[in-house]
């Protein structure tokens, strides 16, 4: 299942870059994300709650940065599974930042996600709709944070 999207942020590219590479800020922006903790220089551990109707799934994920070109792009892979239940998730992700103006940045993201196990029984059609909406929600929260003056170390 491929998901992708584009949104604009009213901030310089360097600042947007610092924000998207800041785990603390990302926890607040990713819908359902409960925790992100660095494992080592390239890997993060994350816990994400996905709710689809009456079904709740808590994924323990490891995100590994596989390619990083500062201020421009970051590629990562995500792997993980639900605690005691049988859903396995893997994804290849790409985020690209493009400078549109001195204080305007375009964020383009794409992800090839595969889910197997109990959650896959819901059917890909609805999963994709859900995920597309999560992308929109992420963009909204991210823009709000930036507008509120979020910076990062």
């Amino acid at each position, binding site marked *: 299942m491929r998901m992708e999207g584009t949104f604009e942020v009213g901030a310089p590219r360097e600042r947007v870059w610092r924000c998207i590479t800041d785990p603390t800020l990302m926890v607040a922006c990713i819908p359902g994300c409960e925790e992100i903790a660095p494992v080592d220089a390239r890997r993060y551990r994350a816990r994400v709650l996905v709710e*689809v*109707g*009456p*079904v*709740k799934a808590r994924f323990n994920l490891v995100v590994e940065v596989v390619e990083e070109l500062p201020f421009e792009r970051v590629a990562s892979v995500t792997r993980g599974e639900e605690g005691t*239940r*049988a859903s396995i998730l893997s994804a290849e992700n790409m985020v690209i930042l493009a400078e549109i103006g001195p204080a305007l940045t375009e964020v383009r993201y794409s992800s090839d996600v595969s889910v197997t196990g*109990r959650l896959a*029984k*819901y*059917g*890909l*059609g*609805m999963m*994709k*709709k*859900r995920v597309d909406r999560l992308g929109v929600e992420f963009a909204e929260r991210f823009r709000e944070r930036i507008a509120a003056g979020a910076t990062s170390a």
Partner: protein
Amino acid sequence: MSALAHLHRPATIEEAVRLLAAGDGERVRLLAGGATLVAMMNAELVDPAELVSLAAIAELRGIRALADGGLRIGAMTRHRETAAEARLAGAAAVLREAAARIANPVVRNMGTIGGSIAFADPAADYPPALVAADAAVEIAGRRGRRQVPAREFFVDWFATALAPGEMVTAVLLAPPAPGRGSYDKLCRVSGDFAIASVALSVAWRDGACERVGLAVGGCGPRPLHLDEADALLRSGRLGEAAARRAGELLAAAADPLEDVRASAAYRRRVIPRMVERAVAQARAQLEANR
């Protein structure tokens, strides 16, 4: 697979709500007919520790007439009973026809209207029928009862206006009016979920349309309904031009899925055809009555 869930059998709605409120929405679940919940438990999609069976609550059973002539369909009313209910006539027949198209006889003997709408699968048969009929949903919670119009009850894929700790207790219908109610479902095989469905409820008097409710199922996160389409059909007296325009409006507003049943584009294409057919049938009946 975990241990068997503990089963409660409360005798009153208040007791069921109390048991439900003790959980977090995941640990304790209400068991109505079990047609969906038990299948989901078998598929390990849900794994409740406690089940609250609603089978022993008399108030939830059956269909009865209200003082104003309206109908109250208890949440535990089986699809088979609703499909056979003679009082669901005229404009209200849309609900009877929808019930008759649900799945197969086994599921219709088991499944309940309350369970079905609380689950809120947008490809299910009741949601568009209730929206077309402009029914209301009665809900019980710790703070008593409240009513929500069906048009506000379904809010998203598998999501309703039910707050945590609340349950559906009944579906309420206005007094049956002369007219026509119809439910048409396009599906791959008999009993499947809808690729698209059209629910139409028209009340008429002295040859004039008094109320029109049109809703499309299976083509978005919740039943698709537009006041504008209803108004067009009413003022256009179910005419061909009004039907065409209403179908176009609904198709444009649809947000269909791509799934094994059909592509999104296909779903958008069949909506106007199904709307025009349902309206033409209602028009023919209205003219025959004149």
